[in-house]
């Protein structure tokens, strides 16, 4: 069965600093990978996804993520964080086998300090 691990429960970065949120997955075949963001008072929104091709994917709001098969990772990055990026970030994995369901990690809460 697929699973997702987000090792960091929360992270604090200064505004303007770079950001990397970690995500590791467990699945035998090539999975589909996603990052979603949940801002305060708002619903979950897709940031980006990977399912094939270029392992570096670009998303909305200046985010990118890189799929590294050898490390079973799909880390989210942003070169310069804005205060409005403070939110909870969820990594998710889905597959065409094992039931087709989408499984989410526990989330990483990002705090941005001035």
């Amino acid at each position, binding site marked *: 069965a697929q699973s997702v691990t*987000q090792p960091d*429960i929360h992270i604090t970065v200064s505004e303007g600093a770079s950001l990397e949120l970690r995500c590791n997955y467990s699945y035998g075949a090539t999975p*589909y990978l*996603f990052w*979603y963001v949940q801002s305060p008072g708002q*619903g*979950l929104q*897709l940031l980006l*996804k990977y*399912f094939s091709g270029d392992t570096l994917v670009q998303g909305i709001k200046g985010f990118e993520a890189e799929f590294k098969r050898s490390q079973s990772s799909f880390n989210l990055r942003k070169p310069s964080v804005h205060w409005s990026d403070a939110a909870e970030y*969820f990594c*998710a994995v*889905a*597959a*065409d086998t094992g*039931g*087709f*369901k*989408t*499984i*989410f*990690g*526990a*989330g990483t809460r990002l705090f941005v300090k001035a």
Partner: protein
Amino acid sequence: GAGVSQSPSNKVTEKGKDVELRCDPISGHTALYWYRQSLGQGLEFLIYFQGNSAPDKSGLPSDRFSAERTGGSVSTLTIQRTQQEDSAVYLCASRTGTATNEKLFFGSGTQLSVL
């Protein structure tokens, strides 16, 4: 409607009562999920419906939880004999079809509080 609609947005109930949570997915979406979001627990998968196939119930935490999807559209999540640990936000999401590389559209959730 334009998005996934959930009702009620908030539900307060007493321990031992039954509750029903409703989800109206985006029209035409054949895939529907229920998740539970508790503090510090992330998004916990509960159940998945895809078209006319048997639902994947592997995430339901106990037999007090059940869900139906009528006519391939509206879904109801029922929790019987609620317990305080059932307090959480229950999120519904839908997707166009069987392509698991497509994104999920989420509703705003139902905040359930069991007193």
